[in-house]
């Protein structure tokens, strides 16, 4: 279970997150909703460790996340998908997917890869292409797949449905639903509930860096 308590985050002396507190029980999906610039990305990055938390605590399954470097958090089973995709352009799609597995020296890399392909079969079609060659939406799919490679306990997906064709987005919603059944916790950000409405257990509304929870 993820527990964020009174977290403040400032970037270059500007406070972005204000005393954010939230809880996410294991196996539940939260939708992080807010306007542009509300702080969704900032919150995700803070949980992942890419931004420095100036005050407060973040705990995950009893461990103090703030005490661990970013790569250690990833190796705890937290998967992160940045909103701007950020694939490695010179690696093939398949290699891009495998990066988290290689980094953590996971023994079951092949099995995980296969699982990702099963969840999002489209990726398999362009697996041998380089990261920079695929279209924007395709990159998005790969980024989601990459987060799934190491994220087997908690997924942080930043705007996963943006730029994804509606037909495919519906499918992804189903995928997410299945993962939830397997006991995965998840935070998805979206500006509204357009896609995630049907599957989220709780909604975290964020506005100007402050959150309020709705169930």
């Amino acid at each position, binding site marked *: 279970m993820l527990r964020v308590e009174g977290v403040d985050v400032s970037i270059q002396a500007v406070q972005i997150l204000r005393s954010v507190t939230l809880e996410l029980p294991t196996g539940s999906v939260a939708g992080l909703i807010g306007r542009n610039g509300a702080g969704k990305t900032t919150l995700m990055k803070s949980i992942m460790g890419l931004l420095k938390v100036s005050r407060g605590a973040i705990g995950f399954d009893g461990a103090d996340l703030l005490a661990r470097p970013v*790569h250690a958090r*990833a190796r705890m089973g937290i998967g992160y998908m940045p909103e701007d995709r*950020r694939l*490695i*352009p010179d690696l093939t799609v398949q290699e891009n997917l495998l990066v988290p597995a290689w980094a953590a020296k996971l023994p079951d890399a092949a099995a995980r890869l296969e699982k990702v392909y099963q969840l999002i079969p489209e990726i398999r079609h362009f697996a041998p292409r380089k990261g*920079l060659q695929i279209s924007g939406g395709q990159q998005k799919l790969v980024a989601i797949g990459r987060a799934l490679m190491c994220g087997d306990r908690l997924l942080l997906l930043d705007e996963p449905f943006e730029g994804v064709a509606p037909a495919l987005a519906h499918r992804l919603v189903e995928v997410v639903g299945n993962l939830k059944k397997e006991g995965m916790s998840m935070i998805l950000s979206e500006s509204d509930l357009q896609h995630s409405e049907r599957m989220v257990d709780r909604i975290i509304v964020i506005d100007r860096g402050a959150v309020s929870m709705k169930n």
Partner: protein
Amino acid sequence: MQQLVAVVIDGIIYSAWLFVAAVGLTLIYGVMKILNVAHGSFYALGAYAAASIAGALLAGGMPPMLSYAVLLGAALLVAIVLGPLIERGILRFMYARDEVVILLITYALFLILEDVIKLIWGVDPYFIAEPYGLLGSFDVADLTYPYYNLILVGVAIACGAGLAWTLTRTKTGKLLLAVIHDTEVSRAMGINVGRFYMVTFTFGSLLAAIGGAFTAPTVSVVPGLGVEVIVLSFAVVVIGGLGSLPGAALGAVIVGLVRSATIHYLPQAELFVIYLVMAMVLAFRPRGLFMLAEARKI
């Protein structure tokens, strides 16, 4: 014919030297985007350490055959002591800065290390000539070459092949690519970026130090030894295409052969032939021989 053979042999020997001296630079630039001027200092330090340590041991009665191992050991010593120190102590705080700024930092380091060398070893030359003649020599085309030159070629091939294998065939190589491109995402994917940087820098420095250590037996180890190496290495690396290992190898071979041919047939032009080669290659392949101009996806 006889002269042609000499051209090729001389060219290959020079290429081998050039490659060992330059390849670490490619590695560090390719991975960390640092044009490391202090590369020359590591080269010089490797040479000094090799000459003084091997010299002392030989004087103390070490069997001469062991001196080759000592050369390698000296290079390792330099890299393992200084590489992590510089990377962890200074460079890592600078990664967010512009490429040129880091270049200047390495330049400042180079200035400092020049004087450190002087403070440790003084300005008098050091020699460790034993290993050069120890293995005897062979004759081709009416010319004599010490076998030691083959060791140099061997070292070059070993370094090149080992690195190439690591970078293109192993997961580590792929992860390096990820680190090169995007440290933030790499971290989020579970890569220990700091360790990658430290190891890469140390390893690149080690290659420079090996270059210096194995050159030491053929030269006099004096202040300023590392200066020439810097620009030569840059030239080789750029001709080949930055960060490309086969590129660096090919660049070294081209420069080596062209230089040797020039010396044999047109000695007056030796002074700028390397730069001419570089300008010509870049004129036709603006990003070096082995760098593909890939269109960015928009």
